[in-house]
């Protein structure tokens, strides 16, 4: 009520004041004169201030006394208030010699089959010809003295996806950090990296098969701790809502059970001994556990007819060694990295329209895989690399009808050559030769990638 009457009252007062001014002309003249005097005084004061500033700058330029920040560059300070904004364009040309395309082959790999009936999820499967993986749009900045924030959107031709939206603490004592939002799990080495950071164009096969196109990326919370040890030891635990199509899917509709989130927990350790000089080494161990549900379309009529419900686990280790040569532009640098990833889906048949007698029986899928890759900078700006991968060393399913199946292992290997024109652009040539065990038999596929990546704007430095 009060706030409604206040403007009206003020306006009335102003009107009254105007009226009285108009009525009293000598008073206006007086006021005008006064304004003129004040303006003159202001101008003279401004001039004095300007003079003083010039003198101060001259004093600052005297060589011996280090100027106390008076020369601080205004551009520097203004720029630092804006978030860092960067755009990464990741595009490539792809060709392979398989009949139905490599995405179809990897989608049909025995033991790693689809976990849902409908094609609701958006896939980044590679096509023969030109591909735009995505345009990565990133904003990051210190929020205040306590938090740091970043948001990353992956935009492709079908739309935009929120890749990461992260708030992390910068103020916690004793080596703690809390991170929340939607982010890549920090387990292992390559999962938390964005595609433009990879040394090869495509994701390692085991990650692709076990975790899908996006890796383990979910809404959640992470607490990590840098131990006060004489060597590098970082430990982290993460809780996620549980939204990974391959390992931690949730449908929640009958006959599947309803489970409130968070449905996934992950833990990891990273250890880095103090190697002398230019050698850097990091070893990691990880494990994760979460709720998982699957819908399957057994008779291929387009609707789900049996459902699985239970838990998924994964575990493994990673190792990264880097030699940082003294020469510029990466010449002489060497990186070797390897990861092992094993998983077990321990599920129960929650419903089956075609074979109701099997309901309640269990289905257990155990699969694993690893990759090893090495990259060497043989000239300034030029790198060559090799990658060897194997999946399905363990590749076994215990089915609800009491039988067991072993599918055997697949491998993929390939060389890579890339040319980093500057820190902001890179061209890469890569080939893959793989032998894949699919549901239809073994298929050998050769692939070629020609990738081109550019980075615009201010993009933060990358971790080890």
């Amino acid at each position: 009520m009060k706030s409604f009457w206040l403007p009206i009252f003020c306006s009335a007062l102003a009107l009254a004041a105007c009226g009285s001014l108009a009525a009293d002309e000598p008073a206006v003249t007086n006021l005008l004169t006064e304004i003129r005097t004040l303006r003159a005084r202001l101008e003279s004061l401004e001039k004095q201030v300007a003079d003083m500033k010039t003198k101060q700058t001259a004093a600052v330029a005297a060589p011996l006394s280090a100027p106390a920040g008076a020369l601080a560059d205004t551009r520097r300070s203004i720029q630092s208030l804006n978030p860092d904004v960067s755009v990464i364009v990741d595009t490539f040309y792809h060709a392979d010699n398989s009949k139905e395309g490599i995405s179809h082959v990897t989608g049909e790999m025995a033991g790693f089959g689809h976990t849902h009936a409908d094609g609701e999820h958006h896939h980044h499967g590679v096509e023969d010809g030109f591909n735009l993986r995505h345009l990565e749009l990133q904003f990051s900045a210190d929020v205040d003295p306590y938090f740091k924030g970043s948001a990353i959107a992956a935009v492709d031709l079908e739309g935009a996806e929120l890749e990461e939206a992260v708030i992390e603490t910068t103020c916690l004592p004793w080596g703690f950090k809390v991170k929340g939002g939607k982010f890549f799990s920090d387990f292992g080495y390559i999962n938390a990296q964005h595609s433009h950071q990879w040394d090869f164009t495509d994701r390692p096969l085991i990650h692709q098969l076990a975790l899908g196109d996006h890796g383990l990326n979910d809404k959640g919370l992470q607490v990590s701790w840098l131990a006060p040890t004489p060597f590098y030891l970082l430990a982290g635990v993460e809780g996620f809502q549980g939204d990974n199509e391959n390992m931690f899917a949730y449908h929640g509709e009958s006959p599947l059970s309803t489970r409130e989130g968070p449905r996934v927990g992950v833990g990891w350790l990273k250890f880095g001994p103090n190697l002398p000089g230019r050698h850097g080494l990091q070893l990691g161990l990880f494990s994760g556990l979460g709720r998982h549900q699957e819908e399957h379309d057994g008779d291929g009529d387009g609707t789900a007819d049996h459902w699985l419900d239970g838990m998924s686990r994964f575990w493994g280790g990673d190792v990264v060694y880097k030699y940082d040569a003294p020469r510029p532009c990466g010449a002489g640098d060497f990186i070797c990295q390897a990861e092992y990833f094993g998983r077990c889906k321990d599920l129960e048949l929650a419903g089956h329209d075609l074979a109701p007698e099997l309901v309640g029986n269990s289905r257990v899928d155990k699969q694993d895989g690893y990759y090893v890759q090495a990259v060497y900078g043989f000239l300034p700006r030029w790198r060559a690399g090799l990658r060897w991968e194997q999946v399905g060393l363990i590749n076994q399913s215990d089915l609800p009808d009491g039988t067991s199946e072993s599918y055997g292992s697949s491998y993929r290997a390939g060389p890579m050559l890339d040319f980093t024109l500057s820190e902001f652009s890179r061209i890469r040539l890569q080939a893959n030769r793989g032998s894949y065990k699919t549901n239809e038999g073994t298929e050998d596929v050769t692939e070629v990638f020609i990738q081109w990546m550019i980075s615009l704007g201010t993009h933060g430095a990358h971790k080890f």
Partner: protein
Amino acid sequence: MKTLSCLIGLTALAAVGAADARADRLRIVTTTSDLAAIARAVAGDAADVRSVCTGREDPHFIAAKPSFIMQARDADLWIRIGLELEIGWEQPILDGSRNTRIRVGGKGHLDASEGLLLLDVPQTAVTRAMGDVHPMGNPHYWLDPLNGRRIAGVIAQRLAQLAPDRAAVFARNAAAFQQALDERMFGAALVKAVGAETLWTQAQDGTLAAFLATGEGGAQAAGWVKAMQPLRDQKIVTYHKSWIYLANRFGLTVVAELEPKPGVPPTAAHLEEVAEIARADGAKIILQEPFYSDKAARRVAAQTGARVVVVANAVGGQPEATDYLALMDLIVRRLTE
């Protein structure tokens, strides 16, 4: 479970051990070896000083490895060159360390470029088509002895804030370093006769050369200014734009760089151009750091008859460059021999 509890036990033990080792010495981590050398001179016994770069590598390209994060974790003071020299690796180290003391803006974070004399500050809009241009100025400023002198002062001030009880010691150490530097620069006799302040003022306003040419100045001058006097007004070629502060201080002119654009390795066509310029301008010296290949320099030298000088631009870059003054000694010696 057993392994896990063992691990936790070990971690706790190690933590206790680490805490014991922390006496009341300050722990300083610098990004480059030059900052470390100056910090050592200023802090004396009161601090342990470590550097990320050793001086033998290109400081633009460093991997933020876990052991650097370890050093930063325990640091009371982090000193950087700034001007985006460390842009490719500083932030992951600072973030990874979870050390709230040394975050940018904190008391434990010192940007040594603050308040220095900077060159090559772009006056027009910068685009990346120009190569690796540092938009806030050329970061190789430590090669100007006057900046080296000032860095000592800035570090002493900051250390005094961190450990007020030892402020006098830091001020004394800094003054001793500055005096030693003045004497190496101008010769002890000249510093005594004229005073360091006057000499540096002259070095800044461009009247030093004329003063040294007079009988009074010339007779007493020694040190780097004396040694470099014959090179004054000479034209030189450098590999990267990393020597302009040195050139500016001793009156040399850099007429060309072997890199076509900062950070872009030399190309054959560009080297032809450089050889042309070097011949036309009569450049006698091609100057570069040891971590660059000297092939391009040799090629231009063969075409022009110029002398290739490969010398460290950072402490530790060559065995003789044991500290800041020794580094400047070495550079002056190599240029003038």
